[in-house]
């Protein structure tokens, strides 16, 4: 269940719009996120994801519309709002000249904590984020992954109820990305509401309870990852690995199998796009029996979020171009 008014929702936007001169960066978007939810904002670069976060933090003023967190208006109640919200921007903007520990205690002081309180919170957070041995190092000396962890730790100093994460794993290696995702899951299980922007489909799929797909400033779909994938049913496929490379004629034959709307090479396999995998499978085996090709492996993977994303954004572009 999702709160659909500003008072009920943890994060709420209605008709949110942002123009940069004549450029429409955010186009009348509306959404509502309930407490404890992990909400993903999925879209390509320049889709309006970061601008939306900046509006919520009052770092950018919206041109139209309303944005609230726990019913607090982003402009009118900005200081009160910031005391319950944390933000981790895409660039880990920690102070490189001071130590990781000082970054944390300084952040504590900005939230009005006394020296003792911020020092003990810093120790707690260094432990929680696996940064104990790096506490005395200048933040500029930390690796990208450690800086990211420190940035998230800094956003948690005041125990926020809501955390905005902008491309949390952008530019990180696999290990660091996994560690960040685990931290996000853990904090979410402790009740923190997340608003997470990403252009990484797999990340959105793994982490989010619901996803809003945004393109060119407009939200084009909001749903759970599973439902979004089901929505793109025609993007289902049959993936087949053959005992040898098919000839050009055989490849043409694959494209002519019942229900197949497209064939794509995927490494050593062929991906037959279809809205009806069962019919395609039956027809595929008839086709193979007629020749001397044999199947090494076959599977029917559902549409990936990437498929959904491509489908939704291409539909949106078609509408936009009037075709």
């Amino acid at each position, binding site marked *: 269940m999702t*709160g659909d008014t500003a*008072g009920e929702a943890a994060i709420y936007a209605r008709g949110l719009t942002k123009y940069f001169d004549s450029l429409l960066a955010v186009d009348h978007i509306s959404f509502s996120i309930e*407490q404890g939810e992990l909400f993903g904002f999925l879209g390509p670069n320049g889709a309006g994801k970061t601008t939306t976060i900046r509006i919520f933090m009052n*770092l950018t003023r919206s041109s139209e519309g309303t944005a609230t967190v*726990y019913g607090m208006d982003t402009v009118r109640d900005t200081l*009160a709002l910031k005391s*319950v919200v944390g933000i981790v921007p895409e660039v880990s903007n*920690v102070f490189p000249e001071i130590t990781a520990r*000082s970054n944390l205690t300084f952040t504590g002081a*900005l939230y009005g904590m006394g020296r003792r309180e911020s020092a003990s919170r810093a120790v707690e957070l260094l432990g929680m984020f696996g940064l104990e041995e790096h506490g005395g190092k200048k933040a500029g000396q930390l690796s990208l992954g450690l800086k990211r962890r420190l940035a998230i730790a800094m956003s948690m100093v005041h125990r926020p109820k809501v955390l905005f994460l902008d491309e949390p794993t952008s530019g990180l290696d696999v290990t660091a990305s996994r560690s960040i995702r685990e931290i996000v899951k853990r904090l979410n299980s402790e009740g923190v509401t997340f608003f997470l922007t990403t252009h990484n489909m797999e990340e959105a799929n793994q982490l989010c309870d619901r996803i809003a797909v945004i393109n060119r400033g407009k939200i084009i779909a909001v749903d759970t990852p599973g439902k979004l994938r089901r929505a793109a049913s025609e993007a289902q496929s049959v993936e087949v690995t053959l005992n040898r490379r098919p000839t050009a004629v055989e490849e043409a034959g694959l494209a002519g199998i019942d229900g197949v709307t497209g064939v794509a090479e995927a490494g050593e396999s062929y991906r037959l796009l279809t809205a009806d995998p069962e019919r395609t499978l039956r027809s595929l085996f008839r086709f193979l029996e007629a020749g001397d090709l044999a199947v090494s492996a076959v599977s029917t993977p559902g549409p990936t979020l990437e498929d959904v994303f491509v489908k939704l954004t291409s539909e949106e572009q078609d509408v936009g171009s009037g075709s």
Partner: protein
Amino acid sequence: MLEAAASEVLLKKPGLVVGARKSWAIAVKDMKIYYFKPAILIFGALFPVTIFFAFMMGRNVEAVTLFPGLIALTLFFSTTTVAPFSIPWERMTRTFERLLFAPVSLTELALGKTISSLVFGLVMSIVPLLIGVIFFGSDVAYVWALVLGIVLGNACISNLGTLVSTVGSETPQNVMLLLNLIRLPMMFISGIFIPINELPTWGRVISWFSPVSYVVDLLRRGLGFKDYFGPVTSSLMLVAFGLAMFAVSVWRMKGWNK
């Protein structure tokens, strides 16, 4: 439950003491990061001393008569150096946003930046005063005038640095360039090298518009030299200039979230 959480936060209005603590935290952080940066030491300490001796070299004047000007010049340059470096630097590296993420008002933020400039200026301007008194026999005629000149002077002029740092540019080089474009001509119309009462009429008129003139005036009174405006006028003008520049700085910062 959500409304309760929100109203709990909205009712907990931060007090003046908490606000002052936030400003102080910003100032202390700036002290740790910027005071020993080469650019700050060059533009804030070396630059004014060099300019002063370059101007005075070969002039047949008693050393003690130079100290009000030297102290004022050191104060002027040192107290206007930290914020114009730190603010564009932090905007460029996006660490300035860290301050905006937190529940810190722009007034508290600007105050923190101004305090870090002020403390640097205070320390730096006391150095030539001590040199004058200890090594050159400068006579402290009125301690209160000296204290007013140094404290009010730093409190006022540091806001000029904060104000200049709110120009559109996000690179320290451009802001420092603009700052020097303002500082260099101001030196000549503020009585630093030539006392205001010895300036031509147009110079005396323009000197009213430079807050540094009032700092020099108080320092001259404090060190037993003839002043021009008088301590009351100078003090009031420093307070007025300081408040006005602070208010304009905050107003200009408010425009950054467009």
